[in-house]
């Protein structure tokens, strides 16, 4: 699974992602025939099936342990192999073990993900019972589980060719039944530049997965690795191909619209971007509808950079209203400055002065230092200040590079270079820049040394966090020289990153524990609260999940929260 966005930094986008990631699990109970314990199973008593034609080992195991979801999946799978097959009438009756070997211990290990142990136990059983063969179904499930794990491990480590190789060795994992593996493999193709192979896999998903949510999520995944026109092709296929009864594929087209708005907003920041008026209008409407603070900021900068300060002010104001923060404040300061409303600019900056690097920078760009009449004539903002105020990050790099060539490189400039690289989402280089800043700090004026050292260290840790090294950051925090606020900030970021990872790996208890720890440090953003709700849901704590979703929905009702509330309500109503 891709993790392109960092929740603490981009909460709204992460929320969308999480919502996109979840419903494939949430929708698991949406199959028409419920098989909850105590509920009658549709089985045909007459016309006994020919024994031995279909391997019912797994079926009987899931029936015995009462794993309804897997039982249903297995019934569907066997039906697909043989449409004439029906679940045996005695599915829930105790069965004699025909081979003399009870396979339950192996299935238990397999279900618990302890595959190596299952393999070892089988090998030992074969020594004890030489004539015995494990059922073909057990061996198949083990092969699939191993291939799934290989794909996951390789993809977690960004070893894309290994992902492709592992999937090629076991193509049976590339089906809708193992959607996460399919997505990871498609991503690997995308990363390797094999766009058509990636497309083929995404097409498999959007044309064979019965659930609308699965198709919609596939679209979100594909958008990161396919060109827009191919994503449009997928949306067209996903909205029409092989419809399943009772599913509404409008969500697929909705996802496409959402993606296109996202692309318009992302393009606003590019130099010289001039989106079509219709696209812009659609994006603005979507941002207003969703109360999307990040989108509002993007629109604010779009106008600010074209010196349309009044419109910029409007969008920054909305962003600040929906989600108050230093980035909105920074925009407000500069927009007011553009309108020559200095007092209001300083007023907007006030809550953040001294604690926000961004806001302080913005203030420096607008404040004219008072001339003392001495030899130092009043100075306006430097070209670098202006570049930063205009959010011209490449310009920032160019200017600093010029300083470096002129042998005027300092720790402060190295650090600024790090932050500009962070803005450009180049965290690896940023980390190097912060390391350079740290190395240069001792040659700075004594008064600034401590501040520079701290800043560089903080930046380096932020850069590592952005590179997914949460574990390393947590390990190194205690030995760092940071202020308490900076530490708290980093620790919260690391916990969010770890929680997201736990959630993706379906370690829901860990996810909750990490979220709880994070909430001790900082208020929980929306995206993470939504994740908390889905974790509770996955653990069968439906009432708590519903409470979380309803609280979110009361504060701000969006498509995500409405869907979450309705899924949780249905589950409670159906007693699942």
């Amino acid at each position, binding site marked *: 699974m891709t993790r392109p966005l960092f929740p603490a930094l981009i909460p709204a986008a992460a929320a969308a992602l999480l919502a996109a990631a979840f419903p494939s699990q949430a929708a698991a109970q949406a199959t028409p025939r419920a098989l909850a314990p105590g509920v009658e199973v549709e089985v045909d008593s007459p016309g006994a099936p020919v024994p031995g034609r279909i391997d019912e080992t797994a079926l009987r195991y899931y029936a015995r342990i009462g794993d309804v979801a897997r039982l249903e999946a297995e019934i569907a799978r066997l039906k697909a192999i043989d449409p004439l097959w029906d679940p045996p009438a005695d599915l829930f009756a105790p069965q004699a073990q025909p081979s003399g070997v009870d396979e339950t211990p192996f299935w238990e290990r397999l279900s618990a993900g302890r*595959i*190596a*142990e299952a*393999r*070892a*136990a*089988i*090998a*030992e059983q*074969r*020594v*004890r*019972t*030489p*004539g015995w063969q494990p059922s073909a179904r057990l*061996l198949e499930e*083990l092969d699939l589980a191993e291939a799934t794990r290989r794909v996951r491990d390789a993809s977690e480590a960004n070893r894309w060719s*290994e992902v492709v*190789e*592992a999937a090629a*060795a076991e193509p049976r994992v590339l089906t809708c039944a193992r959607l996460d593996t399919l997505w990871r493999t498609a991503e690997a193709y995308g990363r390797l530049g094999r766009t058509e192979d990636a497309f083929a896999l995404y097409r498999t998903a959007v044309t064979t997965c019965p659930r609308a949510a699965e198709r919609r999520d596939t679209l979100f995944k594909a958008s990161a690795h396919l060109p827009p026109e191919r994503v449009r092709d997928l949306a067209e296929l996903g909205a029409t191909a092989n419809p399943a009864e009772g599913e509404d594929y409008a969500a697929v087209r909705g996802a496409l619209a959402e993606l296109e708005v996202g692309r318009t907003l992302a393009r606003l920041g590019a130099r010289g971007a001039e989106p079509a008026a219709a696209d812009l209008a659609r994006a603005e409407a979507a941002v207003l509808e969703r109360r999307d603070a990040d989108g509002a900021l993007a629109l604010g900068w779009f106008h600010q950079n074209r010196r349309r300060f009044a419109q910029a002010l409007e969008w920054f104001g909305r962003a600040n209203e929906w989600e108050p923060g230093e980035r909105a404040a920074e925009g407000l300061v500069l927009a007011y400055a553009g309108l020559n409303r200095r007092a209001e600019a300083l007023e907007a900056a006030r809550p953040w002065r001294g604690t926000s690097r961004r806001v302080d920078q913005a203030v420096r760009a607008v404040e004219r230092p008072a001339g003392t009449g001495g030899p130092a004539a009043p100075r306006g903002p430097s070209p670098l200040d202006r570049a930063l105020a205009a959010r011209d990050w490449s310009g920032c790099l160019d200017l600093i590079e010029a300083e470096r060539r002129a042998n005027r490189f300092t720790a402060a400039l190295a650090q600024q270079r790090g932050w500009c690289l962070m803005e450009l989402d180049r965290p690896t280089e940023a980390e190097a820049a912060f390391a350079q800043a740290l190395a240069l700090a001792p040659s700075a004026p004594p008064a600034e040394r401590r501040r520079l050292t701290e800043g560089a260290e903080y930046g380096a840790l932020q850069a590592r966090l952005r590179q997914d090294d949460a574990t390393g950051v947590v390990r190194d925090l205690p030995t760092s020289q940071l202020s308490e606020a900076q530490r708290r900030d980093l620790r919260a970021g690391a916990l969010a990153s770890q929680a997201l990872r736990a959630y993706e790996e379906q370690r829901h208890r860990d996810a909750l524990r990490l979220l709880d720890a994070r909430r001790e440090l900082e208020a929980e953003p929306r995206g993470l609260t939504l994740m908390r709700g889905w974790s509770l849901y996955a653990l069968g704590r439906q009432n708590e999940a519903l409470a979380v979703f309803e609280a979110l929905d009361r504060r701000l009702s969006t498509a995500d929260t409405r869907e979450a509330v309705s899924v949780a309500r249905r589950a409670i109503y159906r007693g699942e």
Partner: protein
Amino acid sequence: MRAINRRTALAITAAAAAAAAGVGAGAMTGTGMSAAGREAELAPAAWADFAARFVAADGRVVDTGNAGISHSEGQGYGMLLAAAARDRAAFRRLWDWTRSQLMVRPDGLVAWKWEPGKGVTDPNNATDGDVLIAWALLRAGELWPDSGLREPGVTLTRAVARHLVVRHAGLTLPLPGMEGFRKGTAVVVNPSYLVFPAFRAMAAADPDGPWQELVTSGLVLLAKARFSQWQLPPDWAQVEADGTVTLPDGFRKQFGYDAIRVPLYLAWGGLRDPYYFRPYGALTARFAGGPVPATVSLPGGTTAQVAASSGMLAVHRLAARLASTGANVTVPPGATGEDYYSTVLLLLTRLAERSLGFAP
């Protein structure tokens, strides 16, 4: 027609019974082994050839591929082969040399490295050497109950259990040596030191020892330690505190001269599950008709130009047979020019095949 079917059926039953007998404690003294005790498992000619080429008159096994040095592993193999050939005098010479030259450690373990003219040049032990020597002694004690060889076997078995078997990440694992294999919270292991048939014999001699857990954990380790598209075990593996298995830095990252023994010991231990043999079957199937590479770098899976020796090919042939991949591995016959290690692998594979009821 009918007679042939019957014979085939009987052969299978006999092999299955032998394999089944290998499980529990006490199996090595069971009927299967005492019946085998009457008849040598290794042809006298094969043993005589090995002894002439690699065993000095004083009982020292010479590693001709390694500048004529000696080591605990070689002594262990020599003793096993001598026992299999029922050469009691040779066994005694090999053991005497081992005891007097290599058993210089206060903890009862065996120093691993000996160089001509210098004696022991590295007092650290190599656990496979200790295990092989202990197993050979136990075997000799069974064959020749009046020889007094069982007691030192039991003593060495207990020393291995006490000093070299560790509990780590939920697994019971053999440390490759006393010194140098703990890395912070991780442990470095050598999968080819999992001498499964020896563990079974040691379980019989030391019923309270950790031997059955070593078998179980060894299988778990081998199910985890699979790398590259070939899914082969590495010569050296690192087991992290959470149980994940990685390739340790500072060790050659490959499937090679060490790890080739992994399928040999599995088969010899009666652990015939095809899952554990498929990687070798796949490798030899891929290189069918040409030279099979001696080493495969991991995790990349790049194969070496150097071809596998006859002994390595013999192991591959056995593995392919158990994997049922249908791959046909040809082992060059009459390899008198083979070095010590290749010859050892050839002979040990022959013993393993025999224990499984396979025709040579």
